[in-house]
């Protein structure tokens, strides 16, 4: 890769990006005004302003379509390094860049839907010249009228007729939210590569590789003696020579006979809750909440009798594709707890009787969380497997998913400690009024007696 394609980004990313974003916002909020965008030097044929707009508006979550001459090796490499935006075709893109002729036809791009009017494509049109003359513009953000040299007029009339749907053009848009920039997503973890600290199975005692208990209080009663840690008298853990090869999952036993359902590899990208509305099923649950739900399935609410086929704790390397390198590298490692359960399944009209699976995977060393997730995962699959709906909370996807999110639950719950003075005053007034309405006839009766 040419070093040149790695240069030409913002020299001072924070301030340059803020100025550029302001410029793009101004251009969008005041149609017809021409803003100066500088600070980036993209490779030809991209203009500096187009480069700045890309740096400001695009990231790994915004598919970009490079039209015509803009779609060249150097432009692709520059975009990949500086924004990470995936290159795509017109029908999939959120942003498109090119000359007016190269971008045509406009019907190729996603316009909005009335449910999500923010999902249309934004077209960055490269023009030979841009001047405040030509077509007359009126509407929101314009005092009286403004003029702009548009490449043609009819297309914009057609687009305006689609309001509130339609495409955004040129000096447009974007909704930038403060927070950590997201660089992308990891390659899905291969938990078969886990360096296990603990790995047990409740189903097979002769597990290939052995039952490795790891740091656990299974089979022991342990009373906390705080002196042990406080006085620094923790003895070193015993060690034994170890074989450090990969530790494959205990799958082959039941798989061989077709007794357990398959989980074939599938590379559909998962939806991202921060960008797309929640669709069932999905979860990022609080551990305590999942524990309660999982316990309810054990007590008979949406019963699924589970065996722990395998429970493992250990570290797994995290790999990520790096666009500027062109290959995946390890970017670190995480500690995970993984639990696979096996459940009886009587079969349905379409499926033979076999064992089905529940799956739990959580960050850190928390087997309670992983087991809970596996049980709830299995309980939620009643519909897919054609089982009966018993009305149990753990079977109700809407109930589970919407109440499992710790962040949302905490926020909504804790806001009640913040000032509600006016709310309370109105309730107080209401209660006083109701009491007056009841007490007044009573007093009249007392007076009459």
């Amino acid at each position, binding site marked *: 890769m040419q070093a040149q394609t790695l240069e030409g980004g913002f020299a001072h990313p924070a301030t340059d990006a803020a100025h550029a974003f302001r410029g793009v916002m101004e251009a969008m909020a005041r149609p017809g005004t021409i803003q100066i965008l500088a600070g980036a030097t993209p490779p030809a044929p991209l203009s500096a302003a187009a480069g700045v707009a890309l740096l400001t508006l695009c990231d790994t979550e915004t598919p970009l379509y490079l039209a015509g001459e803009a779609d060249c090796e150097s432009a692709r490499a520059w975009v990949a390094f500086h924004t990470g935006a995936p290159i795509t075709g017109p029908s999939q893109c959120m942003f498109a860049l090119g000359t007016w002729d190269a971008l045509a036809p406009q019907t190729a791009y996603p316009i909005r839907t009335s449910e999500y009017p923010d999902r249309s494509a934004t077209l960055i049109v490269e023009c030979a010249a841009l001047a405040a003359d030509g077509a007359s513009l009126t509407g929101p953000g314009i005092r009286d009228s403004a003029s702009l040299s548009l490449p043609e007029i009819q297309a914009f009339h057609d687009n305006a007729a689609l309001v509130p749907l339609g495409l955004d053009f040129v000096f447009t848009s974007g909704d930038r939210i403060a927070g*950590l920039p997201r660089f992308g*997503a990891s390659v899905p973890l291969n938990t078969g590569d886990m360096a296990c600290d603990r790995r047990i199975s409740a189903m097979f005692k002769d597990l290939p590789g052995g*039952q490795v208990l790891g740091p656990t209080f299974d089979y022991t009663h342990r009373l906390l003696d705080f002196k042990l840690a406080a006085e620094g008298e923790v003895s070193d853990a015993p060690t034994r*020579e170890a074989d450090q090869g990969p530790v494959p999952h205990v799958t082959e036993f039941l798989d061989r006979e077709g007794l357990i359902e398959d989980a074939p590899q*599938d590379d559909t990208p998962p939806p991202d809750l921060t960008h797309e509305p929640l669709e069932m099923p999905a979860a990022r649950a609080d551990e305590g909440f999942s524990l309660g739900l999982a316990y309810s399935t054990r007590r008979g609410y949406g019963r699924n009798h589970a065996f722990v086929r395998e429970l493992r704790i250990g570290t797994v390397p995290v790999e990520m594709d790096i666009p500027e390198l062109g290959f995946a590298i390890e970017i670190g490692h995480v500690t995970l707890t993984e639990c696979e359960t096996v459940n009886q399944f009587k079969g349905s009209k379409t499926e033979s009787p076999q064992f089905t699976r529940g799956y739990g995977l959580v960050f850190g060393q928390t087997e309670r969380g992983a087991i809970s997730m596996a049980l709830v995962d299995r309980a939620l699959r009643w519909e897919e497997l054609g089982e009966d709906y018993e009305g149990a909370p753990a079977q109700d996807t809407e109930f589970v998913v919407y109440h499992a999110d710790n962040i949302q639950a905490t926020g909504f719950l804790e806001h009640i400690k913040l000032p509600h003075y006016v709310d309370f005053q109105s309730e107080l007034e209401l209660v006083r009024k109701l009491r007056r309405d009841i007490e007044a006839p009573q007093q009249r009766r007392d007076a009459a007696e």
Partner: protein
Amino acid sequence: MKDTIDQTPDRKAWMGLMANAPQGRVTVLLEAALPQPAHTWLRAPEIGSVIVRGRAGGTGAPFNLGEMTITRCALKLTGGEVGHAYIQGRNKADAEAAALVDALMQTGAATVMRTKVLGPLEQEQVARRTTRAEKAAATKVDFFTMVRGED
């Protein structure tokens, strides 16, 4: 001006090694090995997050498990060699050191880097992994079932 690295597996290995090093370690080793070489930023160190994905059932459809923090940067030495770093956690100095080592590995300083930085890092990593594995191996058990008169 060319970023001419054809030993991709090698580069993968050393970038991964530095990404997994304990905090501060790459910086210390690089400082001990060489005076800091002059460089210009292509991308100043920045902190962000990466979505970590798992697969349903370990092998099935991917799902978003959560996020981890990452620090990354890219720089260019005066000779034109480009170094990249993507490392776990939030340590800009370590990211800078890792990118410098990545760039220096493409220069005459490669041997020094191997002996003074990458070599020690690798030994330490092997030692860490072995200790963990040996502790785990010491907890290995066999379960016996009483004969139940079936045979």
